[in-house]
């Protein structure tokens, strides 16, 4: 018999699963959560939504992307040859 679970971190449901998980739930609750997830609002750029345990969405700001400065060929060669600027 299939077993259904929800996996919670603090005030948020981070995932749902079958076969293995943290807190066993009914199939009906599993399918309801799945329906909520698949109908979540589309987040604006730079934001995401997290699902609270009361099945409401909380908009959260995503962390800034790490800087990934490109270097030019001269700088790359300098690094390869010893790291001098």
């Amino acid at each position: 018999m299939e077993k259904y679970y929800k996996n919670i971190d603090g005030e948020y449901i981070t995932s749902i699963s079958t076969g293995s998980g943290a807190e066993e739930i009914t199939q009906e609750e599993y399918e309801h959560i799945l329906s909520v997830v698949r109908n979540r609002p589309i987040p604006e750029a730079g934001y995401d939504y997290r699902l609270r345990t009361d099945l409401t969405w909380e908009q959260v700001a995503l962390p800034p992307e790490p800087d990934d400065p490109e270097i030019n060929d001269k700088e790359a060669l300098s690094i390869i040859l010893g790291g001098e600027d």
Partner: protein
Amino acid sequence: MSYNTDLQSKNARIQALIDKVNALPEAGGVVANAEILTWTPTSDTKGTVTLHHSLGVVPDGYVVVQAQNYADAVNGDSPISYNLFDVGLRTAYSTYIAPCGSMYSIVFDPNTWYESADLGAFVSDSAITFGASINADHFVYPAGSTYNVLVYKR
């Protein structure tokens, strides 16, 4: 070597292993006897996620792990690694470049160590408790996407 060539080679070997399991008299088909674990994130999730599940004591058996790479819609073909590990922290793993939308299966044979780095298994020197996990780095698991781990044990 291109990924595609590598992919075809690995798929052939993996399929051979799956066929081997299916050919076992008591198997009756991998899927029919499989335990299927699924995982669905509720928000876009980046990084490594582990489906950890104790399979119990498997003194002599095969474990089939199957998962589909859905994440390529976000970041292109992605490496996925599959891991089995026991309580002694011995680990068998497979790292694989999964094309967009591909379904990938691997069979872990606990009686054999494979020399190849991409197919592994435990030496079955005693009763072993397995865990199964699917890990993927460097891409996003979209909210609402579902990942399956199919486990068969003899």
